[in-house]
């Protein structure tokens, strides 16, 4: 199960882009705490504390807001355009016995024999949505790929679900497979045309002259 981290927050009176920008310069991240039909509270937390928790895959936190401790789920994180800093966070109140829907990362274990024999490991799905109790959120879903040959596929229905976890993704969706390596071709991308030629220009069809009928 994913570890729970304590995050200290304080209610935030600052509103508006300029005040929030000044707040961010002091190393704080604006956020909001909502859920359980209680009044949403605007809060601010330490950037470093939150960044550490998010990058380590923490989902459930013990959020201390102005001395009041409650369990909260990191529901959404907004990043800056370079993906370096967290600029906003959404916390959702949860109780220990509440069933929630979360997205957890998929983790590959082992080396696929298909890769060793010249195949390419393709992973179209990097995370999967699950339903579980708030306290039972796994850090990741581990997938054993030690028996994956060229052409073999692991679907969502093949994933080993831990106790109390239900996968919400389409059961036939491909999680990981080993595909035959394609020979390098001259035109790798669809939409490419031969060099030197120009693309076709889309023209409107001319309306048929009605005068001919008269």
């Amino acid at each position, binding site marked *: 199960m994913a570890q729970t981290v304590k995050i200290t927050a304080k209610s935030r009176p600052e509103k508006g882009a300029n005040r929030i920008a000044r707040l961010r310069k002091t190393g704080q991240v604006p956020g909001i705490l909502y859920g359980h039909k209680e009044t949403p509270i605007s809060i601010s937390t330490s950037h470093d504390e939150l960044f550490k928790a998010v990058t380590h895959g923490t989902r459930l936190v013990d959020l201390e807001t102005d001395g009041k401790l409650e369990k909260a789920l990191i*529901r959404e994180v907004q990043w800056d355009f*370079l993906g370096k800093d967290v600029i906003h966070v959404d916390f959702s109140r949860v109780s220990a016995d509440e069933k929630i829907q979360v997205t957890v990362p998929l983790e590959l274990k082992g080396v696929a024999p298909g890769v060793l024999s010249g195949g390419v490991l393709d992973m179209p799905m990097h*995370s999967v949505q699950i339903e579980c109790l708030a306290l039972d959120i796994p850090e990741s879903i581990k997938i054993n790929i030690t028996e994956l040959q060229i052409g073999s596929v692991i679907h969502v229905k093949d994933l080993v679900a831990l106790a109390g976890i239900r996968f919400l993704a389409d059961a036939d969706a491909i999680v990981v497979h080993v595909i035959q390596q394609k020979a390098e071709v001259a035109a790798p*991308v669809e939409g490419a045309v*031969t060099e030197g030629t*120009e*693309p076709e*220009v889309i023209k409107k069809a001319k309306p048929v002259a009605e005068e001919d009928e008269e």
Partner: protein
Amino acid sequence: MAMMPKRVKFRKSQRGKIRGNALRGNTVTYGDFGLQSLEAGWLSAQAIEAGRITASHSVRGEGKLFIRVFPHKSITSIPAETRMGKGKGEPEYWAAVVKPGMILFELGGLPEATVKEALSKVAYKMPFRCRLVARRPSIG
């Protein structure tokens, strides 16, 4: 072979200005690591092709390469030793409009050391500063 669109509505486009940062296409989506541009500019189809060749040679057919940009914009130029006037020049090449933060290439199914080496070689071919970024943990 350099990429270009199959069909276009207009042969020539205005130059435009590249304002702001990339708010879309700025996360690693398909692979495990990506090459992120730190500056704005036009990335020519030839530069994209050079990056693709460099990456595929570097990883020697292993892993999966994703090209996240496409040259949708035609760039025109007037031939040398031509008097000014007489209208807009002819399309010379095709380019992708790149904003800071945009992911240009992604690699998946390879160890970090190999990806780092490959994408640093690709970055050398790019006309602007780039950095290597890893996939972020998904939250939602």
